[in-house]
């Protein structure tokens, strides 16, 4: 999708997707098999369930160079393990509130539900989220404080 890449000098950004094995990973596969065009910024990590998503996965990614993180699981009531996504929903919703306090744009993170048959929806989600992250540009890196030069300070 060239439109997307123009906004960042033709460069891809790094978006990490945490997808549940049963629905969303299947949905992404369906989109692939159906040859739906999608932006290529997303790197997928397959997990057993959206309930497996530890909010720390998301911060770890965002603090270590990811420009966006997308979590996707089965629709509510469709979880392979019956209720994993219900716990995930609460956890992620609470977690989301921490990002603005940290100074990270909350639009760099989204969670949603895509079933294995929803190839088209997957295409839409990935395209829109990628667009959203591209609009924000590359994420900032946490800079280290400048080295404290003891000798120099002593000399002064």
């Amino acid at each position: 999708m060239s439109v997307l890449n123009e906004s960042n000098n033709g460069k891809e950004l790094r978006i990490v997707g945490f997808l549940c094995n049963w629905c969303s990973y299947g949905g992404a596969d369906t989109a692939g098999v159906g040859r739906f065009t999608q932006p290529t910024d997303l790197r997928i990590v397959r997990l057993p369930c959206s309930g497996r998503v530890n909010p720390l996965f998301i911060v770890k990614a965002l603090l270590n160079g990811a420009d966006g993180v997308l979590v996707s699981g089965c629709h509510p009531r469709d979880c392979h393990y019956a209720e994993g996504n219900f716990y995930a929903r609460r956890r992620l919703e609470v977690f989301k509130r921490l990002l603005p306090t940290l100074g990270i744009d909350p639009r760099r993170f989204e969670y949603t539900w895509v079933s294995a048959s929803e190839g088209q929806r997957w295409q839409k989600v990935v395209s829109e989220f990628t667009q959203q992250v591209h609009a924000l540009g590359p994420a900032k890196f946490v800079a280290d404080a400048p080295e404290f030069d003891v000798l120099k300070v002593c000399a002064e």
Partner: protein
Amino acid sequence: MAIQEQLKKMILDVLPDVDCVIGWGPGPDPLRGSPFFMRKPEDVESFMAGPMAVQNPALFLPEYKGKKVGVVVKGCDSRSVVQLISEDLIKREEVVIIGFPCDGVLDVAKVENALASHGEPGEITAVEFSGGEVKVTLAGNTHSLKFDDVKADKCGRCAVPNAVMSDFFAGIAREASGVKDDYEDLAALEKMSLEERFAFWENEMSRCLRCYACRNACPMCVCRDHCVASSRIPHWISQADSTRDKLMFQVIHAVHLAGRCTGCGECQRVCPVGIPVLLLKRTLSKGVTELFDYAAGMDTESKPPLLTFQVEEATIKERNW
């Protein structure tokens, strides 16, 4: 009878039935009290409640699981005890809770800052409290400070000065100040742009020593030697002296405390370099209150909101793509 004397009597009464009673005693200098473990009746002599009872004695309770202990609690401390019970980290029948009406505690850092121009904190020889004033004798001179100016921030927004749950209560329950917690501390942060906040944390966390006092002082951080921060597989944070890893650690603490943090403020109080780490936890507590109308540590029967769910969540608006 002064509250202090009533408490001593209660502790003496409880002592034969328990391993020890945890409260406060004299600290390393006149400005500081210290956690205090009373095992023998003569120990109770030096017990002290009041403005120098700053530490949260609930911190020690999980270590005593399996033994019966007594604990003297301020309002905020009692919330930690309640939360520990509701998460089954301690047993209700193994703890005897002694409450008293708390008038607020001292913020040692504020006193030291207020008197910084008069001498070193080590030169303080006496501290006295009377009628809303704190009289501090420093390098031979006595300075009078208003207690309200040097009390802990959390006391200014306290809604539970009396223990929320207790077996014994000394004195008459005090009225809460009625001041609503309006998250003034977070509002100050929210005035900054996202970039400024990011820079704020870069700057604050760059000072972190990774001493983990914040974790060790937190009554709800019960993993102790099994903290994910020290695990190598997965390697959540590296050994590098990097601001990023330090910030990651604070995020771990905040995320693990989501819906569990009672806002006792110990993490921030003990930080030797004064990093406002409580802001992160308060952000999540605020979110939990708004989303699930829940405050941690108020009731042993209520279920922590992240350990349960509703099929239809009234307050969660999911994004419609």
